[in-house]
């Protein structure tokens, strides 16, 4: 069989015989990727204006939309606490906003159980924009019109990046479930 087609006994997650996904990887990848997303913007030097979209929040939305039911409903609080430590926002803002976002998505999902990509993008876009505005309001800085104008590209990027983030999450999900453990 393998001589005819080397991929005959494997699928997108790898070889099927004698292999199983690693439980550690299956559980940790979503959390680790969201935390890495929170850390990434810190390494950019944005001295003049809020520049980069909130990658941590976008990855949270991505995991929630692409893999409903994987993150528990309360996951926004611990992940938000980590984001607050490095993002420069006052501590508690992401705990509040990420929790509210997950509850909102849960309610939307019970209302519209059948969803597609475009509706996911619409939901993520609206939630992303509301998050962007709320984060600016609670940032502790005076909200000047100039600052709002300067932060506009950040809001636009937040909406436009969702499809890319969804693809990224999908590939991370394949990595998460790939059969890495050998059963002897």
């Amino acid at each position, binding site marked *: 069989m393998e001589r005819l087609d080397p991929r005959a006994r494997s699928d997108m997650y790898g070889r099927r015989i004698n292999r199983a996904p690693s439980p550690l990887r299956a559980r940790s990848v979503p959390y680790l990727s969201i935390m890495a997303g929170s850390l990434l913007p810190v390494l950019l030097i944005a001295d003049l204006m809020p520049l980069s979209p909130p990658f941590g929040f976008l990855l949270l939305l991505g995991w929630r939309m692409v893999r409903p*039911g994987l993150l528990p*409903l309360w996951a926004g*609080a611990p992940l938000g606490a980590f984001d607050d430590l490095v993002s420069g926002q006052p501590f508690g803002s992401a705990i509040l906003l990420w929790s509210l976002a997950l509850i909102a998505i849960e309610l939307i999902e019970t209302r519209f159980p059948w969803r597609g990509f475009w509706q996911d993008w619409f939901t993520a876009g609206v939630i992303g924009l509301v998050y962007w505005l709320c984060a600016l309001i609670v940032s502790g800085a005076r909200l000047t019109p100039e600052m709002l104008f300067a932060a506009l590209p950040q809001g636009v990027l937040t909406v436009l990046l969702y499809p890319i983030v969804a693809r990224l999450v999908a590939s991370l999900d394949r990595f998460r479930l790939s059969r890495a453990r050998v059963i002897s």
Partner: protein
Amino acid sequence: MAPPSSRRSGFSKKAQYSLFTGYLLAGAGALLGLGLLALSLWQPAAFAPVRGVASDAVAPVGSATAAARAGSQGVFEAIAGYFNAGRQNAELRREVEIARIRLAEAEGVKAENARLRGLLGLNEGTTRPIAVARLVGTTATSGRRHAYVNAGASDGVAPGMPVLSERGVIGRVLETGRSSARVLLLTDSESVLPVRRAADNVIAFAEGRGDGLLRIRLVNLGVNPLKVGDVMVTSGAGGYYRPGVAVAVIAKLTPDGGIGQLVAEPGATNYVAIEPIAQAAAVAALEAPERGESGSAATPRPQPAPSASPSPEALETLD
């Protein structure tokens, strides 16, 4: 895609309870966040130790990316240099001629300065930086403009110390971790800095606008004496900064002052010097009564000189 059927509770009491518990925990998390947010807006320094630990952990990674950033800047400049080497060479030769003349003039001025200073009996102590550090990162997603440097309390850095680059003022230390510190950049909309015009003594405040420019607000209103191209330097009022460090260049005039562009842009800076507070005793004296009154350690900001804005209590005692 519909949610997997395992997530519908149906008639199973256990599933219903776990769904309800999930909502309960998420709501509790949101409430906890609201409480913490209110606390940290009320007392911004409350979570400084926890953030210090986090920034200590991030700083080494940031140092690596900062080194890579500096390296890549050099590469691009080197490539660009090949393209306009000839023109640049001629320009530089002309500039060197002029610089040589100016240098001679400066020597004369320096000698005269020393003579006059000797007459007045002034001796100028040079301030030595407490630490020289790299800018390792910023809060790029947030509306606040903070930066991280890879020197902290173990290097002697303390909150309030001015952070300068070789061109001018970058900002002020806000919180310190063990090996990293958080810097409030001038462009943050909570940052206020007393400045004066370099040429004379027109005093003003430089406030961050949140979009990368500074709003220069004159203290004495009247005819606006500022002109486009004027250089504003620190006035030394408030005691945090030593006087005479470049802050901004006026780019546009407004009725009450002007809009200033930064002289030292953090994005173009690799190394910064953290200097001691210029007049530490005066700063301590200014902050002591304030702390006694409110008890809140709000974000430290440069206090205007007592003469510039008399406090309401001082006015009351005058009556």
